[in-house]
């Protein structure tokens, strides 16, 4: 067994200076291709997001990176260590927070933390500095059973348990799933704090808007990587002019927009509808005018049409639509 929590021997040979590297990894379960030739790198001190819906392969990938599952093909390194050959060395240095709540509900907050510390041959006190920013928030409840904590508190305790042995990289599988919007935001604030200390973090989420909290993201769908880049860069490659359209009756607006011959895509988006136009070489202003005119002829009232900058969710839908959509209206 390696020395637990060894203060980071820097990335060994072979894998460059990255925190983590995935090279052509595939994994099949029966008929389901859980991971299909997945490749990306995570840089030192990076907050890296795996963004995609259930079934994208995020959990399978985490299990491979945490050395709990062997890929069918391809290779991966964590802190420069090979996930198959160096599994024991990796386990001592990785903080892994699995998807579902992974703590012992009948143990108290403090007992859970002590247990995870002792598994790694350390103690809460030794790990204190690493967990302080988070543990301070749950310490008032240290005698409470973990099972009786609120969703947001559970996530914080699980994060403490993943951090207490002072890992050199964090792997967090959907830490914010099922957590309310406010607690989600606070959890991301915590990750930003941790990242500022230089700890590389790989975190997965199905909430598209959380992509913007990451330095870089891999957008994933059905075992494949759709794109890897900074969120803003992914959004900026969106290929069509995009507009937010409002009207009094949104459902009617959606139906009518589908009859408009120039649409590339039409999706409800919060209070508005995002409309992208398939034409090229036409100015945003004239597209908006033309669209307003069309909606007027179809008796849609209280219309506004504003050009907007695409976000990650717009980009995701465009990318996931492309492979299946056969011929798209190529302008």
């Amino acid at each position, binding site marked *: 067994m390696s020395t637990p929590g060894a203060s980071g021997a820097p990335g060994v040979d072979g894998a460059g200076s990255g925190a983590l590297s995935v090279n052509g990894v595939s994994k099949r379960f029966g008929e389901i291709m859980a991971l299909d030739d997945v490749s990306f790198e995570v840089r030192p001190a990076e907050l890296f997001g795996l963004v995609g819906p259930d079934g994208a392969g995020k959990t399978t990938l985490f299990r491979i990176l945490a050395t709990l599952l062997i890929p069918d093909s391809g290779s991966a390194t964590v802190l420069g260590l090979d996930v198959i050959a160096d599994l024991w060395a990796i386990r001592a240095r990785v903080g892994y927070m699995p998807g579902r709540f992974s703590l012992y509900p009948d143990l108290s907050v403090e007992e859970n933390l002590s247990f995870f510390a002792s598994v790694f041959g350390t103690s809460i006190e030794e790990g204190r500095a690493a967990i302080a920013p988070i543990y301070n928030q749950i310490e008032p409840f240290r005698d409470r059973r973990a099972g009786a904590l609120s969703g947001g508190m559970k996530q914080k305790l699980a994060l403490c348990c993943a951090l207490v042995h002072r890992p050199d990289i964090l792997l967090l599988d959907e830490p914010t799933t099922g957590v309310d919007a*406010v607690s989600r935001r606070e959890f991301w604030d915590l990750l930003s704090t941790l990242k500022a200390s230089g700890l590389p973090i790989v975190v997965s989420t199905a909430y598209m808007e959380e992509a913007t909290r990451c330095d870089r993201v891999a957008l994933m769908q059905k075992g494949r990587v759709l794109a890897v880049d900074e969120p803003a860069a992914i959004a900026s490659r969106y290929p069509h002019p995009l507009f937010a359209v409002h009207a009094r009756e949104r459902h009617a607006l959606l139906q009518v927009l589908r009859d408009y011959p120039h649409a590339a895509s039409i*999706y409800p988006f919060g209070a508005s509808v995002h409309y992208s136009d398939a034409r090229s070489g036409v100015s945003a202003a004239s597209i908006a005018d033309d669209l307003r005119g069309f909606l007027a002829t179809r008796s849609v009232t209280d219309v506004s049409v504003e050009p907007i900058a695409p976000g990650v969710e717009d980009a995701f839908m465009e990318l996931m639509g492309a492979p299946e959509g056969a011929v798209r209206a190529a302008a």
Partner: protein
Amino acid sequence: MSSAIEVRGLTRRFGDFTAVDSITFDIQAGEVFGFLGANGAGKTTAIKMLIGLLAPTSGNASVAGFDVVRNADEVRRHIGYMSQRFSLYEDLTVRENITLYGGIYGLTDAEIRDRATALIRELQLDDAIDARVASLPLGWKQKLAFSVAMLHRPTVVFLDEPTGGVDPITRRQFWEMIYGEAERGTTVFVTTHYLDEAEYCDRISIMVDGRIAAMGTPGEVKQKFSAESLDEVFVQLVRPGSTPTLQHG
């Protein structure tokens, strides 16, 4: 038009903890009502009372015209329910799930056959009718689960986080199915952690510590809290005193 759901002073205590604290509201037939709140705010307890699974400590409620305490059986017969966690039997085929639920809801064989045919056509599941549900993509499962929850033509349907983890296109298709049902007059009571989805609702309520802290159309609620987005309203209500902007942008 009568109320599909009427709630008056509905309260539930567990020991000295008040999970739901005298909530009162009405939902009209055909409305899409978003029932929002932070984790632990009391949403699940409130829903359990409305579907007749948990007795209130005090107050009362009627759903689809039936009292949730005195006529709990009638309530359950007239509602549909779908949650993210439990919806369909994974080891049964699509056809078997439809037949099973049709039987549970007391439909005749002829009704089950007719509605199954219509449902399969609508969802374009023709090729998957004899496939095990476990083999379907999540998005199809969710749509099928919703259709099965509507099999007995309930007047009110409860959807508990129906779109969690679903891809963004399927999520939107799912909401179109919700709109379609609402236009047919079904009342839709839905919970979600996606605040953009809250904007798709006719009206919403936001629960904080067992009470309803805000209620109205999404526009009214935003206006009342002078907020640009429902996200902002949520932060103001759930964490009073904190700054509603991202602090580590």
